[in-house]
């Protein structure tokens, strides 16, 4: 009942100002997508009458949540669209078999990762083989031009093994686990450097890809499995840290499932470090690092409503200069930009980011780009040809841990 009342109030909050559509990166480049206002609050009033509105178009939403961040009324537009998408899926309208299989797979990044990292070398060779990519495009609708990430030997968290009184649970997420284990190790080292024992239970995917591909119910089930793994730590008051902003958004949304918001101490890595800093518990014995960086704030970081703690923190390091690119979505949005029919849209969405990066590099404003989100890193590297990495690496350098 409470849910139903929330839903009702949320729809009532829309005053039809159109700011969401004006700022929507997808609507701006894809003529088929009428925008979040139409498919969200506008259509919702008709859906309550039992009418299916724009079922076939819902999948163009990239779930970047720019609409929700822009909305002056706090309307959960992406949530509305996701729910409509799931209902459309249940009623079988608006999709074909190929995209169903593909979305099924992309929704399960975890299994893809497990499969791919059995023999990462082979996977990567295949993914760099144009013929194989053509096959993927034809058979599954996965764009042959998209920057599918490289797979590596799976992240093995049990290397360091420092025991300490202060503990954190680290949620690496699929990208670190299957594509970027070194960043996982870096995060572990930084936390250990600050006196924490880092615990990594055998987590499942955070559920963002499932939700992004319209599998809301399975997303919830996966979340509950993760919560079960976290439960002993939650009860012991151990904070939960992730370096991935999409995982972070998802983890924070676990609050209300089997755990209350106050119990679940989920943090973005830099949010956590900043909190330590505010309590004077963060080590600032930095070496000077002479570097100029462009900072890209991922959509899912914005959705967390915590500001940009990494920028704040890195600016404490002598020699580090950070420029906020302030250009909105990179376009990839998880698996969205990998899809055949969405690749162009995704590249167009990201274009202002790429242009800004190229301009910044050309004018010596900065040499490389940092962003917390693995997907954004892949896409910005692909779109701008500029080195892009997780901000934790700057800390690693400042701590002399590299």
């Amino acid at each position: 009942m409470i849910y139903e009342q929330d839903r009702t109030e949320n729809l009532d909050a829309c005053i039809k100002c159109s700011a969401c559509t004006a700022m929507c990166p997808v609507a701006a480049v894809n003529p088929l997508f009428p925008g979040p206002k139409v498919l969200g609050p506008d259509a919702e009033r008709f859906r309550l009458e039992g009418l299916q509105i724009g079922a076939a178009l819902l999948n163009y939403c990239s779930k970047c949540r720019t609409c929700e961040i822009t909305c002056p009324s706090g309307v959960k537009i992406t949530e509305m669209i996701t729910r409509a998408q799931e209902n459309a899926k249940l009623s079988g309208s608006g999709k074909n078999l190929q995209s169903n299989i593909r979305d099924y797979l992309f929704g399960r990044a975890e299994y893809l990762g497990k499969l791919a990292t059995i023999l990462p070398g082979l996977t990567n060779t295949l993914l760099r083989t144009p013929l194989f990519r053509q096959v993927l495009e034809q058979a599954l609708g996965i764009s042959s031009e998209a920057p599918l990430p490289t797979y590596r030997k799976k992240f093995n968290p049990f290397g360091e093994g420092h025991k300490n009184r202060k503990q954190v649970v680290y949620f690496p997420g699929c990208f670190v686990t299957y594509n970027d284990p070194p960043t996982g190790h870096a995060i572990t080292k930084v936390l250990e450097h600050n006196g924490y024992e880092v615990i990594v239970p055998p987590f499942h995917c955070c559920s963002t890809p499932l939700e992004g591909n319209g599998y809301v119910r399975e997303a919830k089930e996966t979340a509950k499995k993760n919560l079960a793994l976290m439960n002993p730590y939650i009860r012991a008051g151990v904070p939960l840290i992730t370096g991935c902003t999409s995982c972070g958004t998802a983890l924070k949304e676990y609050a209300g499932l089997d755990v209350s918001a106050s119990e679940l101490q989920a943090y973005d890595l830099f949010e956590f470090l900043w909190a330590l800093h505010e309590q004077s518990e963060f080590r600032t014995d930095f070496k000077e690092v002479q570097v100029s960086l462009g900072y890209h704030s991922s959509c899912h970081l914005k959705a967390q409503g915590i500001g940009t703690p990494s920028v704040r923190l890195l600016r404490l390091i002598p020699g580090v200069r950070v420029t906020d690119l302030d250009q909105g979505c990179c376009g990839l949005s998880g698996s969205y930009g990998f899809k055949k029919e969405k690749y162009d849209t995704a590249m167009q969405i990201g274009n202002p980011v790429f242009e800004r990066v190229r301009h910044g590099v050309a004018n010596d404003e900065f040499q490389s780009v940092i962003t917390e989100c693995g997907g954004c890193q892949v896409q910005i590297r692909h779109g701008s040809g500029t080195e892009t990495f997780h901000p934790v690496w700057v800390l690693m350098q400042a701590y002399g841990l590299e």
Partner: protein
Amino acid sequence: MKDYQVVIVGGGATGVGILRDLSMRGISALLLEQGDLAHGTSSRFHGLLHSGGRYAVKDPQSAAECIDENLILKKIAPHCISDTGGWFVQTKDDSPGYVEEWIKSCAGAHIPIREVSISEACRKEPLMDKNVLRVFEVPDATVDGFRIVWANARSARHYNGEFRTYHQAERLVTDKGQVTGVAVRNLLNGHQFTVHCDIVVNAAGAWASQLAGSIGIPLDVICDKGTLLAFNQRLFHRVVNRLRPSGDGDIFVPHETITILGTTSQFVDSPEDNDPQQEEVRSLLEIGEQLLPGIMKNRIIRAFSGIRPLHREDHDVPGVKEEGRNVSRSFALIDHELQDGIKGLISIVGGKFTTYRLMAEKVSDRVAEKLGNTTPCHTAEEDLLPEIPEHVYKKAARLLPYAPVEKMLERLQEDAEDVLKEIEQTPHKGQMLCECEMVSMAEVEKAASDEDTHHLADIRRKTRLGMGTCQGAFCTYRALPLLWQKKEKYDSLDEELRNFLNQRWKGIRPVLWGQQLRETELTRAIYSGILQFTEN
């Protein structure tokens, strides 16, 4: 010299129902309406197609009429009706004795009811109070008053019936104790003329006593003002009534995209006295709270009032203060030849929307008898509207991939193909001019160019433009170029816009809080700030 056999005064449901009925019997008839069709009570009620359940105990005859007409209208006018079903809900404040009486009365009036378990009820209507005691399902439905009136008018036109809107019947014309015609004023251009006929049917609703009074005939019509609230969205999936003797604020009707909560009852002096008041809003919400807990948090987009014309036969009875609900909701057909010795005038007063067809049938029977016409009534058998062909649906769905095309086609009926053709040729006309109610530019353009359309408010009634969440904040501006193209038809744009905004404002003022107040700020920012209409 007679122009028509019959002149009907009043373009509400009853009037157009009579026009259709007479026309189908081959009787030549003209209908006069002082505003737009259905601008009065026929579009200012809760939109409930009664099952009769609400009258079962107090007025079994009305109840029986309702269930009969309910079934007939669902058959002949499915496109104007949404068969939502309805519930009667007993709360802890409602007498169990009344419930038993109600169950018996429903059986007597042949109203089918089914008891719904509380768990099923709570699942199906999650916003409804969980502490209700008993729930019964009845065949209530919702009806679009405006659409059904226009469907009758169009059907009548097909049978050569005529109607003129914005034509006011100023007074009856008599000759030797017999009504022989009506003196008419065209309100758009001020022209005055007289229409001659054998019989005048006075179906002017709340204005009926004024017309009869024009030749000194007393006709006691009580103006019973009913105020209703329109909520921003569908809060219930079906009609929800309180299972108790009818009172203020005890019925929720999901109507199109909104929910209507009604209805107050208060006698007023004049049919024009229809400004909703804050106190009425309060009283509705207080009672509504019992079925919908937390009702104050739900956004109300406007309040509106309609005038129920109730007939009190014995006009010498003192006690004008008696409550409107205790006066019969059944109708009265008054043959003034029998009652007042004046030939050629029949008045029809009282009644309710659900039984408009039956009222029209009774009046038409009497008229036909007087004219010696023996053709029987067919209005209960013949569909009001033709089926919308499958290919039109498909085309609409293709051209408008994110619009509720069913609703558009139901509104447009035979104009649908023209509008779709327009969109096909000029795709941008498929854009939603009214985004809240999803009305396309082409549809609004069609309504604006319609010969019966003279004001933005007429377009509103035809299309639902301005009736949604934003209450005209965006669409009023967007309608301007369409009015501008037909500028000889409309008042100056400024004035048209101001009037429309003021009409919307009248309904918003008594519910000005929460999100609707924010919406008002946005609307003022647009019209006062950006467009600077204040300076003129």
